[in-house]
């Protein structure tokens, strides 16, 4: 990689003095502007959350008040929500999203590794088929899904939901992992084999750690998509007990035909964020970065 990249970079260099990287004042001003930009983006993205927090903490008798901020915050919605069976919903969602994520990583990693490292008959066909699964409208598949999985007669909809969510999200995982593994020079693995590693050992110790940013991305993506999946969950849990429904379905049930339970809707949604943020906090530190290019010279 090094040998490929450096010449192209230098060949285009016009007569220009090497830019010194630390120019004191200018550099720190630039840093400040960038940080400021980050804050502004963060605030823009949080705008809907501000509204949610304000509503979730609004006392019931002030719901129709025209003031944006309530006179005082009343966090009882966060307490009473648990008596609606929200704990069960949370646990169902954790099982569905966690299960789907595990299934996706377990089946996508070997497939992506192999398609990245080998050219074999049917390789392009496999990648295309995986991609084609994304081209169908989930809303259009509902009837088919309902027929298939209600026919299975599984003890709980959780297993069906794990399988369907794994199917929905496999495409991204396979393609992104394929791209990440491809970008890791095969020479690294070969060097490890020369040094006495087994092929599988080389894959586990060299390639997987280097592909970690890709794995983490696939993991977060799958977890969040499954966590947020709504249409199929609603369809398959129609006859299930309330507490066996995933969060998204429970949250939707606060939106009634004629009235909406705003407080619980938003308190529930805010609580639903917590596991996602915890997951991110746990795996964020595991991203190993930029190790590859310097490794072969």
């Amino acid at each position, binding site marked *: *990689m090094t040998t490929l*990249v450096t010449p192209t970079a*230098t060949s285009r*260099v016009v007569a220009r003095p*090497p*830019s010194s*990287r630390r120019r004191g004042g200018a550099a720190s001003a630039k840093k400040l502007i*960038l*940080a400021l930009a*980050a*804050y502004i*983006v963060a605030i823009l993205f*949080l*705008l*809907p959350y501000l509204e949610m927090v304000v509503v979730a903490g609004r006392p019931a008798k002030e719901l129709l008040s*025209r003031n*944006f901020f309530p006179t005082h915050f009343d966090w009882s919605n966060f307490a009473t929500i648990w008596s609606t069976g929200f704990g069960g919903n949370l646990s169902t969602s954790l099982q569905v999203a966690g299960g789907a994520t595990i299934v996706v990583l*377990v*089946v996508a990693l070997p497939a992506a*590794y*192999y*398609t990245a490292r*080998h*050219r074999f008959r049917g390789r392009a066909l496999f990648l295309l*088929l*995986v991609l084609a699964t*994304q*081209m*169908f*409208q989930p*809303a*259009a*598949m509902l*009837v*088919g899904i309902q027929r*298939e999985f209600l026919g299975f007669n599984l003890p709980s909809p959780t297993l069906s939901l794990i*399988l369907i969510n*794994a*199917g*929905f999200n*496999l495409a991204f995982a396979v*393609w*992104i992992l394929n*791209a990440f593994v491809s970008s890791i020079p*095969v020479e690294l693995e*070969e060097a490890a084999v020369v040094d006495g590693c087994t092929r599988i050992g080389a894959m586990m110790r060299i390639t997987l750690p280097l592909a970690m*940013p890709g794995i983490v*991305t696939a993991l977060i993506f799958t977890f969040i998509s499954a966590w947020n999946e*709504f249409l199929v969950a609603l369809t398959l849990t129609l006859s299930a007990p309330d507490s066996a429904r995933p969060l*998204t379905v429970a949250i939707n049930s606060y939106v009634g035909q004629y009235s909406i339970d705003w407080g619980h*809707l938003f308190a529930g*949604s805010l609580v*639903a964020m917590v596991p*996602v943020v915890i997951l*991110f906090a746990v795996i*964020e530190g595991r991203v190993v970065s*930029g*190790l*590859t*290019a310097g490794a072969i010279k």
Partner: protein
Amino acid sequence: MTADLAPKRSGRRRITGTPYALIIPAVAVLVLAMGYPLVWQLITSTQQFGLAQQFGQAAPFVGLQNYITLATDPYMWTVVARSVLFCAACAAITMVIGTLLALLMNVVARWVRLLLQITLLLAWAMPVVAAMTVWTWLFNLRSGVINWMLTAIGLPFHGHNWLIEPLSFFGVAVIIVVWMSVPFVAFSIYAGLTQVSEEVMEAASIDGASARQRFFSITVPMIRPVIAIVLLLQVIWDLRVFTQIKLLQTAGSVKSETNLLGTYIYQLGTGSSDFGLASAVSVFVLALTIVISAFYVRSMLKEES
């Protein structure tokens, strides 16, 4: 096919049978989860559903009749054109903002980056029903914060209805869809950026490459595969967008003027129980997606090998 292997790999011990052992689990998951619904859709698209079918009578097969009905219906083509435009706008804006944010994450201090990532994560992970409720509130004509702010700075937006005009309806929809998809793009491209080696960058910088040159000759080629995949998926997903449009329509707009392919399928299928026609639209969307992406996917696969 061994001939296709790069020469340096030919010396490697070939493990016969492994390729399929490694790939079959992935195929199995896809077939189990989505095989039946997909085949059901293909079959149903050649059947005719009417009143009798609502009372349980089997639907007769009518060959390509549903497809002919669609192809000769000008409304269908309006919806197709609308969806393609909507998809192009959303995908383009999402990719630009997402890439810029990924680059921003890459240059700021660690804790600023974490702050950005967590905010994006929150936008990404918000249950769609809650997100749509908040967004329709923000744009509410009477009590919405957006109208309130625009009025406060002196613009004539008091009681402005954002959803009644199709163009402004789609403007709002683009904002919401972009808000929901930018985090995915930013996270993925940022992951790609972490693979760009500091050392190479430093070497190029010592060789006199400007920041601009380093970006276009080192960073872009390194993250191109990730950008290619993310763009491809973004186009596919934006073409089949459904939930956001459905919930915005419920919030108050004329359905026939704001239907995209996703909501049109829903309206035909679940709405009027014409599953034959609905499936035909859905298969049409598949064909359309293939047409739009075929050239791109081919060049992607070619570039890889």
